[in-house]
């Protein structure tokens, strides 16, 4: 991976405000960040700080007021169809089988129908969900649904995967399970990922780099490189360096909150 290669995703000074009660309500304040090829980057910030809004800008669902979005080395500001996406709710279509949920998303990304169906069943088999490929999603548990949702995002041939708090709705045990599972699968596949969470442990366990965001309007408070080697153990949280980093991030987030109060 060369440092010279253009990042898969690059945001340059992206700002966005909504109008609320007829007054501008700034949500994002000149956010710049990038994700390199095969890199796992996390955005961490308090809820309501504008992380999902940032994803909507990257996905082209909305346009930034200022700044540019570049995906795959090309400016794509306001253009849809360049990312794959995994939201907090699994968002599987209840009237499609598990396999069809995956293959239909692949056809949206330009994969032929037969190839999409083949990929879906092959990968469901690989993650141990081959038995339920033909079932409707409601028979799956919350954790299983998120696995399918992740697989759907992973298999779409897009430059960046955007994961928006994918585990926030799961209970603690399932969540830890899912983190370990995702770590394994991602380390084998190495896609470029932008991940949102408000859990510091989750961020440090999974990512190569993280951006700490302030309370809204969100600014990038700091960029932190996570030093733990790959492949990473799911129990990396036991290391002293992990604890130090966690405290650092926590302090940043708290300071961001205090600065807000001081204003």
């Amino acid at each position, binding site marked *: 991976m060369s440092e010279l290669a253009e990042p898969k995703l690059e945001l340059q000074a992206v700002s966005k405000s909504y109008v609320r009660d007829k007054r501008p309500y700034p949500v994002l304040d000149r956010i710049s960040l990038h994700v390199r090829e095969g890199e796992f980057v996390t955005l961490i910030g308090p809820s309501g700080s504008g992380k999902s809004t940032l*994803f*909507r800008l990257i*996905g*082209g*669902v909305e346009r930034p007021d200022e700044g540019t979005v570049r995906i795959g080395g090309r400016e794509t500001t306001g253009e*849809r*169809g*360049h*990312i*794959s*996406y995994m*939201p907090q*709710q699994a*968002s599987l*279509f*209840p*009237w*499609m089988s598990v396999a069809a949920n995956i293959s*239909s*998303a692949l056809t*949206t*990304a330009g994969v032929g129908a037969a190839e999409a169906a083949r990929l879906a069943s092959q990968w469901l088999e690989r993650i141990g969900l081959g038995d339920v490929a033909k079932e*409707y999603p*409601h028979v799956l548990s919350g954790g299983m649904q998120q696995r399918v949702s992740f697989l759907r995002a992973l298999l*779409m041939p897009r430059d960046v995967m*955007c994961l928006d708090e994918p585990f926030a709705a799961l209970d603690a045990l399932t969540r830890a399970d899912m983190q370990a599972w995702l770590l394994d699968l991602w380390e084998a596949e190495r896609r470029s990922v932008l991940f949102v969470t408000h859990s510091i442990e989750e961020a440090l366990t999974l990512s190569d780099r993280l951006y700490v965001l302030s309370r809204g309007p969100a600014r990038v408070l700091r960029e932190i490189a996570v030093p733990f080697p790959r492949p990473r153990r799911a129990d990396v949280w036991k290391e002293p360096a992990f604890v130090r980093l966690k405290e650092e991030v926590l302090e940043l987030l708290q300071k961001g909150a205090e600065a807000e109060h001081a204003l």
Partner: protein
Amino acid sequence: MASKTGWRRALLPAGTLVLFVLVWEACCRLLRVDPWILPAPSSIARHMAEDAPRLAGQLWFTLRLALKGVGLGVAFGVAAALLFHLIPGVRAALSPIIIITQNIPLIALGPLLIVWFGFGLLPKLILLVLVCFFPVAWSMLAGLGQAEPHLREYLAMIGASRWEVLRRLELPASLPSFFTGLKLTATYSVTAVIVAEWLGASEGIGHYLVLKSKGYDTEGVFSALICIVALALAFYGAAALLERLAIRWRPRRTAPQGGKSA
């Protein structure tokens, strides 16, 4: 276990119905009600048995007319719902006219249609389509707009096309509302077809009803009424059956209750 609750659900209404018929029969006999005012169920049944071939023929005629009307009406309804949903402004532009058509009494509209289009099939079909398309169009339109916002957001984020959003999300999401409308239409259509035949037809249960009522043949009138109610129930049942066949992804709420715990 499941069969027990199923039994109770079928038994209770059936029991009420039988009781109702028995009380009716008893009243007619004990109070010696004149048959041309209110015939007893037994004499209606006898009349129906005697007139069975004719009734069946008339019913068959009515059934075909109703099916044509419902088919056309539903097709128009679905087309209208899609048009209103996909092209902004059409709904606002056409709503007043559609509301007006729904507020003109059939009794007034029917004769007008006959004046304009004669006694053939056309005025009857127009009447039926006017009645049948509205419930389907309006419920389906509501369903198309009510698709889960988070699924809509997901499709927007991955850059799905308008057609993909319609086919993958909005159409399937609107099916339950569509069937709500279809069940309404199925019931209304039978009343409408009777009115259409009443106004001008040489055959059909509606025509039979007019003849019998003009001749003060109350038993005949009741025979026709029973056929009409049966037809309406059959239409509703068919719509409900179609719904169950089409919407299979929903976890069943009622049926396997007992079965699962056993």
